[in-house]
């Protein structure tokens, strides 16, 4: 153990003291017990090191010259010392098995104490000579004669020494030779031995001589046998697979079975009952094993102090850590107060507080309190509780009823819940769609007013979905799946439903994006109707009208539109020219049929128009439909007749009206013209709020119905009573004739849409009278379509080129009236109510006023007053695409949004403007550098300069300047940005409000600016806020001594310092003891 590997000559880590060496030597020389050498028995020689077994003859030889026989163990009779071939002695298996084991052993030993190990060296070597196999029971160390052991030992030692001496330089030849030989064979061993001996240089010469002699003697005796042996030995060593080292002393060794380690007990076990010194050895061994070694020497003072300091520091550190929360709180507090007068504050007294402290002193007080106590009412709370108890009493019936009610409620709730659950589980989309529809219907039925909010929300949601779809195009086969499916071909997916899914997607896309080109497919299908609804809703929202009215109006409008379409159909237009239907009788039958249809349609139209009236005349139900005033007999309401009569008439007349002013429009009323007065009623019905009327209006499809009344004569013609006439004159005079002028000014065509209706009467008369002289051309165009009104609003911005001179009397003048009127006749035949006043200037006010006055004239109640609603679009004629689509039509015709925008911004070159502005700004901020110029007239008389141009240096300078300017421009932040102007002008006045960079405590500019945002002054804050804002971080008062911080246990529990609570308590006490 503890040997160095290889044959190198190395110093041992810890020197063997000479004394020990000597002892060893003595023991080895004289005594035969192999292990007695190990001084304290801590480590015993391992007898299992493999060595070639010595031949019998050699043993005998040895015995020949030394016949001391100290065998303590008798070999059994049948024992055969089989000769093991050196190659076969150690199988691979063994090596594998024991190699590690011995390495471990070696390590263990190495840690145990070096001097002892050194002592063992010799013994191990000696023993190993004879122990070739791993049968430990057979090859006990005691087996061998001590003389042999001694001899062997001597040999090795001598060898080692010789080796050494050789190195030193002086030794006899023979020894050297032998040494060499041994180097080959057991070089490792020799070297190892040497390690120990090197250190004991001072070993006596005498000893050396002794050994020398001994060795010579051996040589003499043994003769050539040694040579053989050495050769064989060499082979043995070479055969070891694992190099011998301090970690693998004896690669083949180990106890029987090979698995266990050799314990001290194993080795000492055989010493039982031996001589006295062995017993003491055992004792010592036991001591070592029990671990009770000698007390270690105290640490050096410096080390000890350091350890103490470390411990003390850790302790103090953890102790002061208790301050951490306090310190943190102090640091983070916006204000810390060191004023002395904290205690001096007087507690606020409250009634409750005073009452609680009250002690009865006088007799009366005592008596009263006694009484109160007796009655259990000494405390307000008890009194209250008693009262509550009394009040809470219920009769049996009440309780029962309550119980029943609750039970019912509960069961209802439960049913509802379970139903909802069941419905929710149904996966059918169709079902849900149907559900939704029915729900919507339900909602519509019981009052749109109630859930106007809901409708609005719904609308918003819808709109959002549409916008989303437009942005993402999610359903336009853009997904990976859809693309792939399409790529593969739809035919491939016939059976798996992909096709349907794609179709569904496309349908959804169409549905969601339809809004964009709504105007195009307005009159197509159900969806459009739903969108109408949506539109109406928004209009409603915008104008504050009731949803109910809208709905009704819309429905009526639609119906009416359908009816009118039927009416409008050219009876001749779709007549078959040939075939069966062209036969005369068939034609006749068809004619008859169509005539019937038209009649029916007419009747229906009437009915539709009637439909509005009851609602309009909520106040006086019986004669409401007709009576504009009391004077007006029920039957004389012009509207009915107008509606019927003018519908047919108006269009043809309108077509030849070319003037573009309203006078022209007045033709609309057809044959009923009187000079100076015109009553026109243009009644175009279209579906979806479109109206096309008038010459420029192209195909008459407008939903609007224009009724123009002018002058009394007209009214007379209409058979209106005088009273009515006079009534109408009032408003007219107010309205003035602005319209005509405005229209003329506009130069284009005029379309007026009046959403206004006569309030209660709702006869929507357009009192356009305005006196004969004034009202040459005043048109009140009442457009019943609310949606149109809404659209107007919507597109107000878009219609740039169109001047909007809208008098939204009915809607704006009196909101209530407006809404009511809407109620009354959404669509119905352009119920032009009151007088619709069209003006360019202060149109709204006049409209409102007009409405009022008009209604006054009509003796109508003020709140039922027909509002005037006239929205006039004066459109530049140029933009009107020749056919002269009027403004109202513009709104209502099928124009896509893009088109609208394009038109709206037609004359507007915004980009060019912007660029010009940017260039201007650049000129200002990066001015052109003034370079040298030629003096005017300089050199001109010679003509030289003209010929040569500017001198080179001037040109150069100019170029340089230009370049510099370009560079400066390129450096600007907005250099590469076409649509941005970033001013880099240094604003001196603003500069004083800007800090350079971000000041230190702030992390970013936002935080800094936030800190400056709210003003502190008392002009900007309430008193308390101001006081809070200006509170200084430290409040102290002069003359008050501030004591050091005192430890207060933090409020929150579960802190880390909990374990040392006792100490803290102590510290706390000390802290507070101060002062």
């Amino acid at each position, binding site marked *: 153990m503890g040997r160095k590997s290889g044959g190198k000559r190395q110093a041992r880590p810890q020197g063997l003291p000479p004394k020990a060496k000597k002892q060893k030597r003595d023991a080895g020389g004289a005594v035969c017990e192999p292990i007695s050498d190990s001084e304290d028995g801590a480590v015993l020689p391992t007898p299992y090191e493999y060595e070639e077994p010595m031949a019998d003859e050699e043993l005998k030889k040895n015995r020949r010259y030394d016949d001391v026989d100290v065998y303590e163990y008798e070999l059994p009779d049948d024992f055969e010392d089989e000769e093991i071939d050196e190659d076969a002695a150690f199988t691979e298996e063994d090596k594998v098995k024991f190699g590690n084991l011995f390495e471990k052993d070696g390590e263990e030993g190495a840690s145990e104490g070096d001097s002892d190990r050194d002592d063992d060296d010799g013994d191990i070597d000696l023993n190993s000579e004879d122990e070739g196999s791993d049968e430990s029971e057979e090859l006990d160390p005691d087996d061998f004669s001590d003389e042999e052991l001694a001899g062997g030992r001597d040999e090795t030692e001598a060898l080692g020494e010789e080796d050494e001496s050789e190195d030193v330089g002086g030794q006899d030849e023979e020894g050297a030779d032998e040494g060499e030989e041994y180097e080959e064979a057991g070089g490792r061993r020799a070297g190892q031995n040497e390690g120990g001996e090197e250190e004991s240089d001072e070993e006596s010469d005498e000893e050396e001589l002794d050994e020398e002699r001994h060795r010579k003697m051996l040589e003499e005796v043994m003769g050539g046998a040694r040579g053989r042996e050495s050769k064989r030995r060499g082979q043995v060593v070479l055969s070891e697979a694992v190099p011998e080292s301090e970690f693998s002393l004896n690669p083949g060794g180990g106890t029987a079975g090979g698995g266990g380690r050799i314990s001290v007990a194993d080795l000492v076990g055989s010493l039982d009952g031996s001589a006295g010194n062995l017993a003491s050895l055992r004792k010592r061994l036991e001591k070592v094993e029990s671990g009770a070694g000698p007390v270690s020497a105290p640490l050096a003072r410096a080390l000890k102090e350091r350890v103490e*300091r470390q411990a003390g520091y850790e302790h103090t550190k953890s102790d002061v850590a208790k301050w951490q929360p306090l310190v943190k709180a102090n640091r983070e507090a916006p204000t810390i107060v060191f004023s002395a007068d904290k205690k001096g504050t007087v507690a606020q007294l409250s009634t409750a507080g005073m009452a609680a402290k009250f002690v009865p002193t006088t007799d009366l007080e005592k008596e009263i309190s006694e009484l109160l106590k007796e009655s259990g009412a000494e405390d307000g709370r008890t009194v209250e509780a008693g009262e509550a108890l009394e009040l809470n009493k219920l009769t049996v019936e009440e309780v029962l009823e309550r119980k029943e009610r609750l039970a019912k409620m509960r069961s209802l709730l439960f049913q509802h819940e379970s139903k909802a659950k069941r419905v929710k589980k149904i996966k059918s989309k169709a079902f849900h769609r149907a559900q939704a529809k029915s729900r919507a219907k339900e909602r519509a039925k019981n009052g749109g007013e109630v859930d106007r909010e809901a409708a609005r929300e719904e609308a918003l949601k819808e709109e959002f979905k549409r916008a989303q779809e437009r942005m993402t195009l999610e359903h336009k086969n853009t997904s990976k799946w859809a693309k792939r499916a399409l790529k593969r071909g739809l035919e491939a997916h016939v059976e798996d439903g992909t096709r349907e899914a794609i179709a569904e997607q496309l349908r959804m896309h169409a549905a969601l994006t339809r809004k964009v080109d709504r105007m195009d497919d307005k009159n197509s299908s159900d969806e459009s109707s739903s969108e109408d609804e949506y539109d109406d809703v928004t209009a409603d929202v915008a104008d504050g009208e009731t949803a109910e009215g809208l709905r009704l109006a819309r429905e009526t409008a639609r119906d009416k539109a359908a009816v009118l379409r039927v009416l409008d159909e050219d009876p001749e237009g779709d007549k078959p020219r040939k075939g069966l239907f062209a036969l005369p009788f068939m034609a006749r039958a068809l004619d008859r049929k169509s005539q019937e249809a038209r009649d029916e349609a007419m009747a229906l139209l009437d009915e539709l128009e009637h439909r509005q009236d009851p609602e309009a005349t909520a106040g006086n139900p019986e004669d409401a439909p007709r009576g504009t005033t009391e004077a007006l007999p029920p039957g004389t309401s012009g509207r009915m007749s107008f509606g019927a009569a003018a519908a047919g008439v108006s269009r043809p007349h309108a077509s030849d009206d070319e003037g573009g002013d309203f006078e022209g429009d007045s033709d609309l009323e057809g044959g009923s013209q009187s000079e100076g007065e015109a009553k026109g009623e243009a009644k175009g019905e279209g579906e979806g709020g479109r109206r096309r009327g008038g010459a420029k209006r192209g195909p008459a499809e407008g939903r609007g119905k224009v009724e123009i009344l002018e002058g009394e004569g007209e009214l007379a013609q209409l058979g209106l009573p005088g009273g009515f006439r006079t009534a109408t004159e009032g408003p007219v005079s107010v309205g003035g004739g602005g319209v005509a002028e405005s229209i003329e000014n506009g130069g284009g065509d005029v379309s007026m849409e009046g959403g206004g209706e006569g309030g209660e009467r709702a006869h929507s008369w357009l009192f356009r009278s305005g006196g004969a002289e004034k009202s040459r051309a005043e048109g009140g165009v009442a457009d019943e379509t609310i949606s149109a009104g809404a659209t107007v609003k919507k597109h107000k911005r878009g219609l740039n080129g169109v001047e909007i001179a809208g008098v939204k009397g009915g809607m704006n003048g009196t909101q209530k009236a407006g809404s009511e009127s809407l109620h009354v006749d959404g669509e119905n035949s352009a119920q032009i109510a009151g007088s619709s006043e069209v003006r360019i200037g202060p149109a709204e006010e006049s409209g409102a006023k007009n409405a009022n006055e008009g209604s006054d004239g009509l003796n109508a109640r003020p709140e039922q007053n027909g509002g005037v609603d006239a929205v006039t679009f004066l459109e530049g004629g140029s933009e009107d695409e020749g056919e002269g689509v009027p403004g109202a039509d513009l709104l209502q015709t099928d124009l896509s949004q893009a088109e609208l925008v394009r038109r709206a911004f037609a004359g507007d070159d915004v980009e060019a403007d912007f660029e010009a502005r940017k260039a201007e700004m650049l000129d200002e901020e990066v001015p052109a550098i003034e370079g040298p110029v030629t003096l005017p007239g300089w050199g001109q008389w010679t003509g030289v300069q003209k010929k040569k141009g500017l001198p080179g240096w001037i040109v150069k300078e100019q170029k340089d300047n230009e370049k510099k300017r370009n560079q400066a421009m390129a450096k600007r932040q907005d250099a590469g940005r076409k649509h941005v102007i970033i001013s880099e002008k240094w604003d001196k006045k603003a500069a004083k409000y800007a*800090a350079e960079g971000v000041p230190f405590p702030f992390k970013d500019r936002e935080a800094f600016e936030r800190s400056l945002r709210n003003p502190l*002054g008392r002009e900007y804050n309430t008193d308390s806020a101001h006081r809070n804002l200006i509170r200084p971080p430290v409040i102290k008062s002069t003359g008050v001594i*501030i004591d050091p911080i005192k430890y207060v246990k933090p409020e929150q529990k579960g802190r880390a310092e909990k374990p040392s609570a006792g100490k803290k308590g102590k510290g706390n006490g000390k*802290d507070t003891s101060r002062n």
Partner: protein
Amino acid sequence: MKVKVISRSEQDFTKERTEDVQKVYRNLDPALHPFEKAHEYTRALNAAKLDKVFAKPLIGALDGHADSVSCMAKNPRRLNCLLSGSMDGDIRLWDLAYRRTIRQFPGHRGAVTGLAVSHDGEHFVSCSSDCTVRLWSLPQTEMGEASGTDIETQEPVVTLQGKNGFRALDHHWKGPLFATTGAQVDIWDHNRSDPINSFSWGSESVISVRWNPAEPDVFATTGSDRSIVLYDMRVSTPLRKLIMQTRCNALAWNPREAFNFTVANEDCNCYTYDMRKMKSALCVHKDHVSAVMDIDYSPTGREFVTGSYDRSVRIFEYNAGHSREVYHTKRMQRVFCAKFSGDATYVLTGSDDTNIRIWKAKASEQLGVKLPREKGKQAYMEKVKQRYKFLPEIKRIDRHRHVPKAIYKAEKLRQTVANSDRRKDDRRKRHSAPGSIPNIPARKKKIVQELE
């Protein structure tokens, strides 16, 4: 229809007394107050300017010592009481309110190096380079004008003899103990003639000592071996030693933060440390241009005052890298000791010119009793100034201090040196392998070693 009319009750607007303040009704509608930022900016600017106008920090000088003032002590119990010791062994008790000496304590034959008043304010101890420590009783009564003009003298209660001269002294904050330093650190009890405990770590002399006000058993010393040493009475050994590049002349514990202390270093800077983490300073306070001789924390723990060999006194915020105030006068020489008053309102400095000076801790503060409105106004102005102090003009005015030419030049020089050092360092880094030259922060740069 209800018509709203403006009506006022006469009573609300009638003053009962002439000094009554009329209630002002304000309309806080922001629309009525545009440009509030501009308004407040202007106010802040005015506040900054007014601060300059009213900045008259020097209140007075206490004249009386015949040699330079080496140490001072304030009474933890009384505000108007100050003790000072000089290089000629003279100890004086001052009545600060009347700015005069009321008693002298003769006895020391060498320079008085340390003075401290006991925790109860009844005694004080002094140490000197003549190897003695004396315990005196502190007169309680004769403060005020009535005590006359003559200066009485007083004998020490106890004189304790040491083997070596003493360099510094500080009194325990809770009990009758005090610590002296010199060749070693000794802990004395008022009632014993021998030190009850002695600490030494290394053989260099210890030049200052300070007890922790919050954690009473802990104290710290600085030594001429450039060390800062922590001690704990309970463990009776030194705890830790920190070696810096230059020595620390004084040390002060933050009275509101038990584990933080600041040292006044020879290298013109002060360093704040957390005693639990001494690997790095918490903050480096720069601005002096010569060695910092003494340091004392304000009792609020938010600022501290330093006296320096460069003839100036500076006040630092506890967490700021630069001073907020610098005080100097033409006649003030090297400052050897500086103290904050117990109410954190005044600063006292003792200097080589044998004078003790009384300064205001806030140069432009209005002393005396203030009306609530005045207080509010000043608080508002201060707050507005604080808010806008980063804006260039206000910053310029607020930060500007006139300093003596010597200090100004020295500052410039130091700046130049620092800049060139930095430049050199940068270049070195640039031309070395990345990471081979570590970037050591200033907070660690001056720390040589932490010994355990």
